[in-house]
């Protein structure tokens, strides 16, 4: 019974009324699940949390806490749905170097999706290095937690789509699993980037596209913003436990990382990246984040948002 959880977490009168209306409509509509999916979740109502920032816990605890604050995983993943989780697995580097999403973070998300009853949990990235799935330690954790690694290194798996809202990037070959999934979760680490200045959730969308060279050739920042339209993530998680503050995106050694023990979650990809930029002391200076706001993808003005700040220590 997929609809049950959303009734349990009704928190205020407004959402109660909304739900009652929705239930009333059910009598006339046969496709019950579809209707529920279209109904705005209660937390999206005014006054709900837009962005959760958690500090000083283990990665797994912070993931759990952050998602809980956004209404729980059942608010995002319904039973029998297909979930695609897109970490950053660009480089064949161990977890300690912070070049990729930490396996603990990815593992915690997979476990939560499994708990919510997801039918198929797919994890992939279009890697820059060969052997990055194994080298990052992500493959092992994902398979242990019941997820499925899918290759991103095969052009045949990519299908060409149009991006009508895109300004520079109007066409792209996109991984088919992203196109046919029910829930799309992006979970990059926060890093400095020599080209785009910062890599967080918006930049992470580059990994669902086959031809990355096209981004570099056609104004990187604009293409990053355009690529978010391909498939807006339903949930964004930004791992800033050990952000890389220089020599990104690969880093030279562990000295390039600082210990922040922070993790953020949001539905708004622009907001979470704006907060990431603030952590790197680059608030308002990352062009693709500002473009995201201008294009109406999300809100980069953090003072307008309802931010929940928590510490687990």
């Amino acid at each position, binding site marked *: 019974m997929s609809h049950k959880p959303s009734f349990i977490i009704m928190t205020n009168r407004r959402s109660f009324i909304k739900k009652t209306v929705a239930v009333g409509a059910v009598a006339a509509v046969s496709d019950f699940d579809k209707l529920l999916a279209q109904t705005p979740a209660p937390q999206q109502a005014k006054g709900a949390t837009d962005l959760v*920032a958690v*500090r000083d816990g283990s990665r797994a605890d912070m993931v759990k806490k952050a998602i809980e604050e956004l209404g729980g995983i059942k608010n995002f993943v319904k039973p029998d749905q297909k979930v695609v989780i897109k970490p950053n697995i660009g480089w*064949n580097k161990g977890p300690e170097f912070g070049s990729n999403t930490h396996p603990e973070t990815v593992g915690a998300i997979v476990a939560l999706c499994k708990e919510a009853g997801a039918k198929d949990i797919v994890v*992939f990235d279009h890697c*820059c*290095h*060969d*052997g990055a*799935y194994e080298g990052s330690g992500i*493959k092992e954790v994902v398979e242990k937690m019941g997820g*499925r*690694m*899918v*290759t991103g*290194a*095969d052009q*045949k798996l990519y299908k060409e789509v149009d991006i009508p809202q895109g300004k520079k990037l109007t066409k792209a070959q996109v991984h088919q699993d992203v196109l046919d999934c029910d829930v799309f979760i992006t979970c990059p680490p926060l890093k400095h*980037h*020599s*080209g*785009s*200045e910062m890599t967080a959730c918006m930049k992470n969308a580059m990994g669902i596209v086959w031809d990355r*060279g*096209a981004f*570099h*050739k*056609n*104004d*990187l*920042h604009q293409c990053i913003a355009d690529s978010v339209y391909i498939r807006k993530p339903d949930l964004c998680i930004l791992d800033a436990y050990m952000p890389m*503050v*220089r*020599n*990104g*995106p*690969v880093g*030279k*050694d562990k*000295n*390039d*990382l*600082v*210990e*922040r023990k*922070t993790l953020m979650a949001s539905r708004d990809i622009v907001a979470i990246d*704006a*907060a990431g930029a*603030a*952590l*790197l*002391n*680059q*608030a308002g200076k990352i*062009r693709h984040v500002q473009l995201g706001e201008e294009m109406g993808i999300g809100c980069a003005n*953090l003072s307008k948002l309802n*931010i929940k*700040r928590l*510490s687990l220590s």
Partner: protein
Amino acid sequence: MTTKLKWMRIILAGIVFLCLSYAFLARIPIIEQMGAHLSKPLLEEASWLAHIQFIPSLLGSIHGVWLSIALFSGIFLLTLLFGRVYCSVICPLGITQDILYWIRSWITPKSWLRYRKAIPFVRYAVLILLALGCIIGFSAYSLNWIDPYSIYGRMMNILVQPGVSAINNSIAGSMDSADIVRVPAYHAGWLALGIVSATMLIVAIMSIWKGRLYCNTICPVGTVLGIISRFSLFRIGFDKDACKRCGKCLKACKAQCLDLKQGTVDSSRCVACYNCMDACSEHGIKYRWFTKVNKGASFGKACKKTCESPKNQEMAIEESKKLLPDPWGLSSRRAFLGTAALGVASMALSSCKAQGAAVLDPTKTVLPPGAGNLDRFLDTCTACQLCIATCPTRVLQPSGLELGVKGFMKPRMDFRTKYCLYDCHRCAEVCPTGAIQKMKITAEPKETIQTKDTTRIAVASFYPCRCLVRREDMDCGACTEHCPTKALYTVPYIGSDGQEHRIPRLDPDLCIGCGACEYACPVTTEKEEAGDFRKMCGSCAESVGICDFKKQKGRKKPDRAIIIRAVNPQQHAKKKFEEKAIDPVGDVDFPF
């Protein structure tokens, strides 16, 4: 006992052949998955079998690799003890020929090979020519063509690997798995394909036609081991009392070395396959201590037809004596003259030794890290292509004529295919000859030894005239993103649009030439540029000294903004170490 020896040989040879083939094909997902289900830790070390090959271990010994010296001595002692076991059990080309001959005898069970006298002229001529060639510095032209292991290696990498990759890709297409994925199939070029096919065809025809003919006439390893095995302590010989001269052993012998008439076995040609012992129902042919074998070469009562008269018997003994004390088999004048002529020919050939390096294109001659200088590398590498077969990024490719005639089929880096991984030195780990020298991978601060990550194999040049940031006022930074040493980094730059962008800057002192930047650079000549690129010329003054492209006729332009050129010999580069980074927002819990 007798059957056991043969089966032991077959099982050991099977293991060696499969493991070595696995080492050459392990990069293909279906093979890797098969290995993972068998015994992954064991198979991961399968490339070690390349180290126990004769020519590679000999070359390693010459270059002072202690492991190779130990292994080479091991092969020597093994042969001195048991004869040419190496040829039947360790040599992959020998095992390949056995498989081919076995298929032939399975198709035509009635045909078999008769005893033939040895052809010492050819085998010693080849060996002496080769030895002379190597002494006068000709090894790079000759050794790799004739080393049986390298012939096998090239067959695996150039003929078998593309085939298995195609099978893998057709399977991967119908599977939704992250383990079995498609792999790019590279074409080694028609010249390489033609030559490897021709070599294999010759070996295959010789083995199907005459069993171990190749090993006993052409192969220099077979010849050297043949000389040693003349003195081997255990060897095959007829037992004159038990033998009924039925000839079953002859039919089983693929080396044509059993002389039933004389009752002798040519141990220099016997590859210790033990087929004859398995075929004999009377225990008439035995594997024994050498003193027992040499006595009574001729037959007693059983010798009726050929050895009837005492005179014939004497002659037979004479003949067999002649064979034994002349281990070099150079008694005939014809052979001596022929060998001398070949020797002179090799001297003449050496005079055309190429001057090479100077005329090579440095963008196409980047060698794997640890290769040292070009000449040393080309002299030591036998082009077995194991490094190419195991390179995880496939940046190592077999050369056509980029490295000169000497370097044909030897590895070079192709940065248009991929680039060299920063903390990987797989090529050196598998290299059996010591051509790619092993090094520690990561340098620690204040360490002075040269490591893989401080070995400069090439150096990058940055051409701002072609850089997208300069030309089209956009941010890119793909090269700096991929640079593992941070020799390339970005600095603020005000474009012609008045906006601030970030443009790459190169510090050549830190560059090790891994090629990641050239691979990542999105500039290609496919698209015609809007502006005239010549207007941009001069924009490089701050970062490049003299432009090589200016000197060329017709003002050719670099096809990427980054071009890598080989350095020869390879150098020891600086490595940048930095203090622990400072948190940009300090102690603030949430800076928003």
